């Protein structure tokens, strides 16, 4: 390691470090403009030049490697004079009137700080030779503003977009004094593929590229010096990006991304949802007081229902989701059909109309009255206990929430198990990775990813992605995959759609939906035929491989080609690439899991993975990519019907005793019977008569909504705890106003088992309360001793009953968090698992043979299209949050169906036209988006939109193991809807 002296201090540095790296490591600051952490070094701004003894010229600290014996002076006379010169030149094209004559006391940005530090006085505007560059070029954009008059051409934005996000919207065009940053070829970011991630905003040192909303809603002073900056975890996907919330006037003014060199999952990046989807907590629709359905009255100390019966019991002045779906729509505004925002006058009236698009209609509140917390609590406790006494605990069920913290999920499951004696506790994992968990439990006795996201970029040679549209659903991870591909990793994508990653992939296995088992079995068959399997791994670490060897024999690539539509040669090439690795990582998501044979599909992929030994090494990761920001955590802390925390069975009396002790209840209180799952609860035969729902909206997310909606109306009692009066909450008896992610402290687990701490930034509005507080009070009222005062205390209890979290405390989670298992207080966490053994009884993985079966519904003459459902970049699940986030909603305001151009032509429809989609269950009307991302004969419908709810159509048939519904495939027909008169775009 070379030793050098900087400003008289002797330092040692890595051989490949630059002078800048060495200085920064030692806390010596050298000004930089074009340099930025993690960006490629270009060395074009020359502000970092320093003196090095024996060198005739100044050298750029950012681009000069250290050498042994080097003597560096960072603020020599020559270096300082050079810096002044650089700044003076840059200021010639910078609106700097406010920096003249002592105005330098309040620098507004990174660049101006240097101007202030080096005391440079800009030339007055009038005395300049060159005009400023053009100003705001895209007025009215809901998210990002470009004001190139303050650009200093450092090109950080260009590199951030091209090298970190791997998009490439920006570049430098023109020459010499005319040079400037251009957006795509025509100034329109959308056309250039911009994903609105805001990476360019993050890196710009002058604010030439900046967010729109803060400037519309907050003063420059509030933006520059927020009251607080609070570290939180992004409330959207399973990547779990750490974000900093800037608070002004008790509201979130801005979101930035922190500590980029720290080992956070996002390392400074976010996606559009994380950076721009933060204003929903301030939406006018937030519930601020508890609501009680009119008709509940207190009579002699007890609450009794004396409202209407039958259909009126839970009715209201609204249309059912079914009716809304079938109604004709005003069509789709051009923005939603991929046209330029510049053509859209609507956006100039940002605050006026867009925020209200999905606003709760005022009539929805009519069946309710505002209540006190006392009333709401009393009524809820009374009814839950009444139903328990009358019908037993199993007549009650709760849906916990993958959007809520570990502490909250833990308390809710504790309340239902300890207070109400039922294991009917579940959450949306059922409709997410439950089949993965079932398959992984069967094969490996595990329920989470084996590795980390960062190893994909750091150490993986072949990336196999199956049924995951990562760049849209987990964009920050998607960017990491693109970077890995760029640095040479081979990318194989198995997906019926040509997603962005599929388009970039070296091999795209574009199979017929639901034919995965045939595909992976054929890959394995070919691998065995070529003797590419990992013999040593099979012999030492697995069981029962012979069964699978026999089972895959019939699946020759030729036969699989017939089933899947993927040419046999492509299957062979993919198989060989996968097996040769050397380090292959296996990623999958909803495309595999949301099938009625999801467990088998995942199993066949695991068989492939295990046969090649692609697990248990750094670089060979098994990564089921989790959807919600805490779907992993909610399952880990036991919000699923069969297990307590750490996946410990509810059927085991010894385990039960342990929890009974921890909760100070008699052991018999806790049921030994496994509970019902989400998809089983919502069935007449479930026997469930009372429900508590925390932060979920099953009426949009469950398959075959029309049935679900009817079922909820038949309940005896329904309490909902949420931010808004959701489509589900409108049927409730009691609605508790909860807190958003920004209004609570708690922990969340991301897709790589990383437990992270999110802090409270603002207060819940009005009388709304933290979800933890609500659960503590209700648990106590139900007679379950719950002395906890804070999330921290709840975590102490979780750690005590969860062996793999035993070393977790809130204070240890500050910073990058911890990847569990963290068995002891000084354990550093676990980046990857299974290096030596699997957590099965004998430490070996089990092979389970599976057979291909056709999807339950295949297209036929009446229903000729295969409908696939999923998410979009700008929206989240049932849209409760994102459709109330101004910027996000503006980019993707209405429901659509993606349809192949050839199919659209055959139907005689074009972009924005309305079509009616009909499945065997129901029908709904939505607008066309023509896209060749979907294959012919297939349509894709996002499920975010209540007015055209995809789940009206989906098939509720269930996976036999995990009770997952077949959300990904159903047969539909598509018919044009001819509006009688032209309808105005809404």
């Amino acid at each position: 390691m070379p030793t050098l002296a900087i400003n008289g201090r002797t330092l040692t540095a890595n051989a490949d470090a630059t002078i800048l790296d060495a200085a920064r490591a030692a806390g010596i600051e050298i000004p930089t403009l074009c340099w930025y952490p993690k960006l490629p070094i270009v060395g074009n701004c020359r502000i970092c030049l320093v003196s090095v003894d024996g060198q005739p010229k100044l050298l750029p600290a950012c681009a000069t490697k250290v050498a042994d014996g080097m003597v560096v002076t960072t603020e020599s006379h020559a270096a300082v004079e050079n810096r002044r010169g650089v700044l003076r030149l840059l200021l010639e094209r910078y609106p700097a009137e406010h920096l003249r004559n002592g105005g330098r006391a309040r620098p507004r940005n990174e660049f101006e700080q240097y101007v202030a530090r080096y005391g440079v006085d800009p030339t007055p505007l009038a005395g300049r030779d060159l005009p400023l560059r053009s100003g705001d070029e895209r007025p009215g954009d809901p998210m990002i503003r470009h004001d190139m008059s303050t650009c200093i051409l450092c090109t950080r934005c260009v590199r951030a977009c091209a090298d970190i996000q791997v998009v490439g919207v920006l570049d430098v065009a023109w020459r010499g004094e005319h040079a400037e940053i251009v957006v795509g070829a025509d100034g329109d970011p959308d056309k250039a593929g911009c994903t609105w991630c805001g990476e360019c905003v993050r890196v710009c040192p002058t604010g030439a590229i900046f967010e729109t909303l803060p400037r519309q809603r907050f003063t420059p002073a509030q933006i520059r010096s927020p009251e607080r900056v609070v570290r939180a975890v992004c409330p959207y996907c399973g990547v779990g990006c750490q974000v900093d919330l800037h608070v002004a006037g008790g509201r979130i003014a801005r979101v930035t991304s922190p500590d980029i060199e720290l080992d956070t999952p996002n390392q400074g990046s976010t996606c559009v949802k994380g950076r721009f989807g933060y204003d929903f907590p301030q939406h006018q629709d937030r519930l601020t007081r508890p609501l009680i359905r009119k008709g509940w009255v207190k009579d002699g100390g007890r609450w009794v229902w004396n409202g209407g019966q039958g259909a009126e019991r839970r009715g209201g002045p609204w249309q059912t989701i079914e009716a809304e779906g079938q109604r004709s729509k005003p069509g789709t505004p051009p923005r939603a059909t991929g046209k330029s925002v510049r053509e859209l006058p609507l956006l100039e009236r940002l605050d006026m109309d867009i925020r209200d698009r999905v606003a709760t209609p005022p009539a929805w509140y009519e069946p309710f009255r505002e209540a006190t917390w006392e009333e709401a609590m009393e009524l809820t406790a009374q009814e839950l206990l009444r139903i328990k006494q009358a019908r037993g605990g199993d007549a009650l069920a709760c849906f916990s929430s993958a959007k809520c913290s570990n502490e909250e999920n833990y308390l809710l499951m504790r309340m239902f198990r300890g207070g109400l004696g039922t294991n009917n506790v579940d959450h949306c994992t059922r409709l997410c990775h439950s089949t993965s968990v079932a398959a992984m439990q069967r094969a490996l006795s595990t329920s989470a990813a084996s590795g980390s996201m960062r190893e994909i970029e750091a150490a993986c040679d072949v990336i196999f992605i199956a049924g995951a549209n990562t760049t849209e659903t987990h964009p920050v991870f998607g960017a990491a995959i693109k970077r890995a591909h760029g640095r040479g990793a081979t990318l194989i994508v198995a997906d019926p759609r040509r997603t962005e990653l599929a388009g970039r992939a070296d091999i795209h296995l574009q199979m017929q939906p639901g034919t995965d088992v045939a595909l992976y079995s054929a890959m394995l068959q070919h691998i065995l035929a070529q003797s590419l399997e990992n013999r040593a791994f099979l012999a030492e670490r697995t069981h029962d491989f012979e069964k699978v060897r026999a089972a895959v024999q019939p699946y020759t690539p030729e036969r699989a080609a017939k089933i899947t539509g993927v040419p046999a040669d492509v299957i062979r090439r993919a198989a060989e690439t996968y097996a040769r690795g050397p380090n292959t990582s296996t990623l999958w998501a909803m495309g595999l899991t949301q099938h009625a044979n999801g467990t088998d599909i995942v199993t066949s992929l695991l068989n492939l993975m295990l046969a090649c030994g692609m697990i248990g090494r750094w670089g060979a990761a098994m990564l089921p990519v989790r959807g919600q920001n805490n779907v992993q955590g909610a399952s880990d802390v036991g919000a699923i019907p069969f297990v307590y925390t750490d996946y410990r069975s509810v059927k085991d009396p010894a385990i039960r005793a342990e929890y009974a002790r921890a909760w100070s209840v008699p052991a018999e209180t806790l049921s030994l019977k496994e509970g019902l799952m989400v998809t089983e609860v919502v069935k007449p035969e479930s026997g469930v008569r009372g429900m508590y729902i925390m932060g979920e909206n099953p009426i949009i997310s469950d398959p075959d909504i029309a049935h679900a909606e009817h079922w909820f109306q038949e309940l005896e009692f329904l309490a909902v705890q949420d931010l808004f009066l959701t489509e589900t909450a409108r049927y409730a008896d009691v609605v508790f106003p909860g807190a958003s992610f920004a209004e609570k402290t708690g922990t969340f687990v991301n897709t790589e088992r990383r437990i992270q701490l999110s802090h409270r930034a603002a207060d819940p509005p009005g009388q709304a309360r933290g979800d933890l507080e609500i659960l503590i009070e209700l648990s106590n009222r139900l007679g379950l001793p719950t002395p906890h005062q804070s999330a921290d205390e709840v975590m102490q209890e979780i750690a005590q009953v969860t062996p793999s979290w035993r070393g977790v405390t809130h204070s240890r989670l500050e910073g990058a968090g911890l990847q569990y298992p963290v068995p002891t207080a000084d354990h550093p966490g676990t980046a990857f698992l299974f290096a030596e053994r699997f957590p099965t009884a004998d430490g070996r993985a089990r092979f389970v043979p599976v057979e291909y079966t056709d999807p339950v519904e295949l297209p036929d003459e009446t229903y000729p299209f295969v409908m696939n459902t999923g998410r979009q970049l700008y929206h989240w699940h049932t849209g409760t949050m994102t459709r109330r986030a101004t910027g996000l909603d503006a980019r993707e305001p209405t429901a659509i169906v993606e349809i192949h151009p050839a199919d659209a032509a055959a139907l005689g429809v074009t972009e924005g036209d309305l079509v009616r989609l009909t499945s065997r269950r129901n029908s709904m009307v939505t607008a066309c988006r023509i896209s060749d991302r979907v294959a012919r004969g297939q349509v894709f419908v996002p499920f975010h939109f209540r007015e055209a709810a995809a789940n009206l159509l989906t098939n509720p048939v269930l996976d036999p193991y995990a009770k997952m519904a077949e959300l990904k495939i159903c047969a539909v027909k598509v018919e044009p809807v001819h509006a009688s008169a032209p309808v105005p775009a809404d």
Partner: protein
Amino acid sequence: MSAHPTAAREYQPVFLGKTREQLDTILKRYPNKQAALLPALWLVQEARGWISDRNMAEVAEVLALTPAYVKGVVTFYTMYHQHPVGRNFVQVCTTSPCNLCGAEGVVKAFLEHTSARDLGATSPDGSWTVIEVECLGACGFATPVLINDDFIESVTPEKVPELVRKYREGRR
């Protein structure tokens, strides 16, 4: 479908048929697609007379580059037209030696006789665009002029009307 209003505005790609074949031949000469950017842009300019933003996006897609990168290259070079130019494109050298020999007068004469009026603007009938360029490497034969691909030496203001007449009549 063609009756639909959006159909009329639909973009017609450049790289179809013969132009596509030409590009494929060019691509064979280079180690990667990016390297073929300049010739690809020439093909566009040949086919369309100039290079629109939309053309740049097409080139970007065909060569797996970004539209902004292509724009950067197009705008860097002066010989790619970013606006439609006249059928006859006149480039007059006005660098110092030619200037001393009266190049300004030649420029003026062209602007007048072609009715293009302003440098870089296109005449109302769409047939002429006149621009000034740097040294054409024929300083001994001032003032040299490039009309389309023809190199004409020793042009004086007096010879301009005749040249304009010749090219207007389509003789090249």
